[in-house]
């Protein structure tokens, strides 16, 4: 085994992985459905290939196939996958297992779910390396500490002694990169490694990942749905859709002149823009709110937010900044310790129980995960029909009629009436959630990260719909998000939150124009741009300041 660890013995530029006409099928709905329909892929040593596409495009399946791995319920039906002379389609399980964890490694999207909570980080980092006999445990651990240092983890000497829950999400993602790097593989597959992270954390993780991949001249497949991110990482970008290749080009070329319309549409949200209109008619006002969970730590400190009628106010900030907690205070799920919420000039009772049906009706909420926001056992008709029945006393034909009207408003047709949530796509589900909120005929809708789980094109559709509904019905949105592109696209006013405090509130133009307070500056500069040099420039700039 040990002579297998001829790390990067080959020359840069030599072909490492070659996939020809790969076809993969998945078992669902009682039959085999094609997922990958004949894709070619060539990866040379030391090269980073970005795989990009919407969810369901087959990018993860293809990335995993590059390791010779198929998820349960999938099978490779054709083509060849040659990794350094070995055809992984015909290779036995034993042969493949000798490669996995030593010469080919994988970095998953959710680091938190990929670590065993019962073992120390460093033991997990070196586990595969030691079990493959590449290095002795003590040598591998010394090496892991060096890797931690080059990934800019704090306290590289001791951080490995911690357990997964004792480090942050961004740190965990870097530890996982160290784990993948521990055996000095020839190929690493990164599967959406930064999707679950905040923009500010994402920058750090991207920088350290890029640094280490360059340092060891490792080839990598980088899977993501964010074109701006892949632009920073990849040498070549391959766009996938419906299991087929749309186009492949060097990163710079792809960004400057994408050939296919589809590729252009991948960053369409960034093209949306709304003209801000000032308004003085305050519908919802949050005054001096302090809040805490249980008797624990205070999460909101003297929060003041004014929401003008018929406008969109965006609350931005990284996770843990108190955005969602603010929403919980407004809806009454979390009564504040002090301060109050005023709605239409009247103070709202702090607790959910104290509020009248009418007060509840006027403030509706849309959630981030449409999957969990709808009861999986109820049909669309039941989901949208319930608020109609509950608030407006509709039943029978009248209710059905109104549900169909609402479906039309969200640009879906009557064929959706009998569907269950599991029978719809992510964007359709989110539309149903919007219809459920609309059914109540609310004045304010709180949107909690409603587009962050969706693909770019679908996001654009949802945002357009929300703006159209606002124009038509004068609904006020309180839009919670960490995505600056979305904020730019839809808001009139912006509230920046950090550590449970409001850093800034003002009109969009005011907030997004320099000079910025320190935190706003950090937040805005961390949003990836469609410029392959963006990350490099940012690193230089921040390096100079430090």
């Amino acid at each position: 085994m040990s002579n297998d660890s001829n790390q990067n013995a080959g020359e840069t530029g030599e072909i490492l992985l070659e996939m020809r006409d790969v076809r993969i099928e998945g078992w669902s709905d009682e039959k085999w459905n094609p997922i990958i329909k004949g894709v070619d892929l060539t990866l040379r040593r030391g090269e980073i290939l970005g795989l990009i596409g919407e969810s369901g495009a087959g990018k993860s399946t293809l990335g995993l196939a590059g390791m010779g791995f198929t998820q349960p319920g999938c099978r490779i039906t054709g083509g060849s996958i040659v990794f350094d002379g070995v055809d992984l389609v015909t290779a036995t399980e034993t042969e493949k297992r000798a490669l996995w964890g030593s010469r080919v490694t994988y970095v998953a999207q959710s680091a938190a779910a990929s670590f065993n909570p019962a073992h120390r980080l460093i033991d997990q980092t070196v586990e595969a390396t030691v079990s493959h006999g590449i290095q002795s445990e003590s040598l591998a651990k010394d090496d892991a500490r060096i890797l931690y240092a080059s990934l800019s983890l704090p306290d590289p000497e001791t951080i490995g002694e911690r357990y997964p829950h004792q480090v942050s999400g961004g740190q965990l993602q870097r530890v996982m990169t160290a784990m993948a790097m521990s055996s000095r593989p020839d190929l690493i597959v990164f599967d959406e490694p930064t999707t679950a992270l905040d923009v500010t954390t994402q920058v750090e993780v991207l920088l350290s990942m890029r640094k280490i991949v360059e340092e060891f001249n490792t080839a990598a497949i980088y899977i993501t749905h964010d074109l701006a991110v892949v632009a920073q990482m990849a040498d070549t970008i391959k766009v996938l859709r419906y299991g087929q290749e749309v186009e492949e080009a060097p990163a710079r070329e792809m960004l400057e002149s994408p050939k296919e319309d589809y590729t252009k549409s991948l960053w369409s949200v960034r093209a949306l823009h709304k003209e801000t209109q000032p308004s003085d008619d305050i519908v919802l006002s949050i005054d001096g709110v302090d809040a805490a969970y249980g008797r624990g730590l205070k999460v909101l400190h003297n929060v003041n937010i004014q929401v003008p009628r018929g406008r969109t106010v965006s609350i931005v900030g990284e996770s843990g900044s108190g955005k969602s907690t603010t929403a919980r205070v407004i809806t009454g799920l979390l009564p504040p310790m002090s301060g109050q919420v005023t709605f239409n000039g009247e103070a709202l009772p702090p607790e959910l129980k104290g509020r009248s049906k009418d007060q509840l009706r006027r403030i509706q909420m849309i959630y981030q995960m449409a999957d969990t926001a709808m009861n999986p056992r109820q049909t669309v008709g039941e989901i949208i029909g319930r608020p109609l029945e509950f608030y407006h006393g509709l039943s029978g034909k009248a209710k059905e009629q109104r549900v169909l009207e609402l479906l039309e408003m969200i640009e879906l047709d009557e064929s959706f009436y009998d569907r269950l949530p599991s029978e719809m796509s992510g964007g359709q589900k989110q539309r149903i959630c919007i219809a459920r909120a609309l059914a109540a005929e609310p004045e304010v809708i709180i949107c909690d990260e409603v587009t962050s789980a969706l693909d770019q094109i679908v996001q654009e559709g949802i945002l357009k719909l929300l703006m159209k509904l606002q124009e038509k019905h004068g609904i006020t949105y309180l839009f919670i998000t960490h995505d600056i592109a979305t904020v730019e696209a839809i808001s009139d006013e912006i509230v920046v939150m950090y550590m449970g405090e409001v850093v800034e509130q003002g009109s969009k133009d005011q907030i997004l124009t320099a000079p910025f307070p320190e935190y706003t500056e950090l937040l805005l500069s961390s949003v990836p741009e469609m410029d392959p040099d963006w990350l490099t420039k940012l690193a230089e700039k921040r390096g100079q300041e430090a």
Partner: protein
Amino acid sequence: MTDTNSYSAATEVASTITRRTRWERARITLKKAPLTAWFGMIVIACYVFVAVFAQWLAPYGEADSSFAAYAPWGDGHVFGTDQIGRDVFSRLIYGAQNTVGIAFITTILSFFIGGGLGLVASIDQGWIDQLLSRFVDILMAIPSLIFALMLLTVFGSSAWSLILIIAVLDSTRVFRITRSVAVNVAVMDYVEAARLRGEGLGWVMRREILPNIMPPLVAEFGLRFCFVFLTIASLSFLGAGLQPPTADWGSMVRDFAGLLQFAAFDLKAGLTPLLPAGCIALLTVAVNYVVDWFLHLTSGLKD
């Protein structure tokens, strides 16, 4: 390549394309059921049939003791007669009605009590939850058969006290499982959405949470039913269960136990005590087969 300008939400590809009614889905699932599950379902169907139509199926009455005691097999009495001259075959048939029927009612009752309180506890997650959970812990700490025997001697061995006592003791287990699966559902956004809408406790319990925890509960129902059934049989065997002349399999095993020693002289007479025991065993096995299949279906291992 699809033109992106013609994008419309309705044409987005969802995971499932074919739309099926609940009946069609059930039919497809049944078609794929393994042999063991079919065996279980057929056996259960037979038991239900016998239990429902016992009055018409049994050749003689349940308490009809007008025949000679200890008559051998055949000769007008398929499985002979018992110690006071009652037809064994007829009593086996009535036993299905009594034992299975009472076990069924008891299980349903225990699910109402345990399931209902479990749901309340999972939604509340405050002091009501603490109170109920600790009370259940106390009840579960006492060996249930001994506890049941004790309560039966206090309240008397009528069919209804039997049902109530076993149901209450068994509901502790149902409470545990309901609460543990329901807490996972109770934190879902759709439950929060229902509460934000202003829905009452009843709606949240029945319409939002219950449909989503049905699979484990149905599986548990099958298992609980077996345990209740065995408990009743054990209690009857010990003489504290259903009282004569009501026919029930547990007490029949006890009554005939003495006949086992005659097996050396008359094999058939020796087999008699095994008949009610066999009835109990067969139903337990059948129910477990079906439950196993159901658990496999709902555990997410399919496809």
